[in-house]
């Protein structure tokens, strides 16, 4: 396997959980999450030549994944190309379905529900905050200044904290 392929596989494996979280935040149901996940994989591959050697892996990955997620409903043709048949063996063979997993943790559901109340850009900010990214990295991903990120994040954290403290229904 060529070196480039190895690097790509390694990058995807190391960031698999991060990608799944992005999909869960930006796509409503399991099918949409799977579509988005596959589309992000393809876009990561298509952009991979720009990554090699000159970017922070997580910054680069966040950019591609968030840009793909935010453009999800404005690139139907690309998504059609990127979508594997749901019954394709690579998704079905011995693998637990996402819906088995999605309801697994009630607390996690509460967290995702709270994130879902934010607007699309604030969702990105909160994910990076929960992922312990620095202001510099958040600014690089979104294309904002660090001070702008600081102000936005402060406001978003306040909102999220108040929602998380609400008694669950």
């Amino acid at each position, binding site marked *: 396997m060529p070196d480039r392929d190895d690097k790509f596989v390694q990058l995807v494996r190391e960031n698999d959980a991060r990608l*799944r979280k992005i999909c869960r935040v930006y796509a409503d149901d399991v099918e949409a999450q*799977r579509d988005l996940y596959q589309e992000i994989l393809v876009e990561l591959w298509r952009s991979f030549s720009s990554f090699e050697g000159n970017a922070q892996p997580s910054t680069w990955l966040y950019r591609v994944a968030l840009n793909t997620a935010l453009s999800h409903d404005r690139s139907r043709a690309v998504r059609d190309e990127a979508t594997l048949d749901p019954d394709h063996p690579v998704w079905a063979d011995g693998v637990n379905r996402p819906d088995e997993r999605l309801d697994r943790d009630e607390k996690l559901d509460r967290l995702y529900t709270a994130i879902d109340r934010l607007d699309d850009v604030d969702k990105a900010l909160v994910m990076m905050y929960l992922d*312990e990214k620095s202001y510099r990295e958040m600014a690089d991903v979104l294309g904002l200044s660090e001070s702008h990120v600081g102000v936005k994040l402060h406001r978003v954290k306040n909102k999220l*904290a108040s929602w998380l403290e609400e008694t669950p229904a």
Partner: protein
Amino acid sequence: MNLNDAKDLWASEQDSDTPSMSARSLSDDELLRFVKEKAAAFDRRLWRRDLLESIAAVAVFLFFGWILLRDPSWWTRSGALLLMAGSAYVFWRLRRARTRYAAPSLDRPVAEVLRTERTKVEEQIQLLNTVLWWYLAPITLGALLIVVGSNGWTWRALIQAALVLFVAGALYLLNQRGRRCTYEPRREKLTRLLEEVEENTA
């Protein structure tokens, strides 16, 4: 739950060993085959679209060029000339619209990608707003001249001319529907996202 709990919870999800919708369910070879096949299919689709557009433009040009050289009627020859010029202009205009602003590279910052994408969508809206003048008018006028040149000022010509105008009207309405239903909502969404990114937080 407070924000620190949320951070712990968020981090713990990474350690989950439950396989799910993800590359975990694919072997290395399957993962690479999937992304390579889909990326290649996307490139092929763009290449086919460009090829078909080029073939259509050349076919129209050759067909009406042949009419221009062969037909004795000046009405028909003027129409053919207008159609050739019109189709060449349409081909150039569509290509220019596509290449004027490079497609946003998804590894750029989010705000930059949104801005580029919105510029491209605005270009599409502008094209559709003016489609009557740069696309439909020269081609319809060329077709009407050919109708008159082929039939003279007859009832048959009148019926054919009405048909040409009906098709042109339908194309105009379809284009305006595409603008209203596809591109304007897209522009609104992009504008909303940009406002979310760039909102004044002072």
